């Protein structure tokens, strides 16, 4: 597994964490702040720890080449396309569903931005892993 694949896996790992945030909010809004710290600090460490593995570089090996760049570029195009399409759909939905004053709350806007960022990370990371997956299936000899 090369550096790009590890970064993509870390992206999926981040998405899982980001999906936990609204889940915690849904489950219980009155969590004890001390308990939140006890749970929260190890979670932050778990979130940051993989960065060390990602930045660790072997001096002798090439960690990125033209094929990796092509895969990243394609994944970026796919992610931008899907997220832009998704955002247009969401905004169209809001236009039709909103009341006559055409206003949406700031919390809704924050939610849309959060959704867009999470969706981008999810699609981008998945696209990278899928591209590596189907290209390298029987190549190792």
């Amino acid at each position, binding site marked *: 597994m*090369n550096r790009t694949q590890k970064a993509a896996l870390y992206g999926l790992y981040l998405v899982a964490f980001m999906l936990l945030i609204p889940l915690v909010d849904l489950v219980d809004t009155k969590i004890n702040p001390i308990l939140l710290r006890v749970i929260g600090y190890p979670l932050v460490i778990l979130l940051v720890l993989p960065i060390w593995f990602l930045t660790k570089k072997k001096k*002798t*090996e*090439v*960690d*990125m*080449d*033209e*094929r*990796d760049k092509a895969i990243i570029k394609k994944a970026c195009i796919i992610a931008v396309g899907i997220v832009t399409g998704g955002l247009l759909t969401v905004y169209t939905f809001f236009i039709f569903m909103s009341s006559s004053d055409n206003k949406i709350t700031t919390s809704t806007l924050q939610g849309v931005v959060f959704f867009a960022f999470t969706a981008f990370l999810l699609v981008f990371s998945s696209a990278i892993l899928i591209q*590596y997956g189907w*290209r*390298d299936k*029987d*190549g*190792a*000899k």
Partner: protein
Amino acid sequence: MAQNELKNQIRRLRFANDEMTQQQLADKAGVTRQTIIAIEAGKYAPSLPLAFRIARAFRVPLEAVFQYEEEPS
């Protein structure tokens, strides 16, 4: 419509060159081993500079490594 296919002799040339490993070829060409695997399997068409670097690693002309074939479908 004709189908274009890029064939290569990398595997044969590696074994002809003292059984050169994919990693050794990757180091000489300045790419990752995964890219050599993908090129060897015909799943990735390298850029022209990379194709020249691979040919240079075997000390053979480009045509000895890569062959472009046009197959009528």
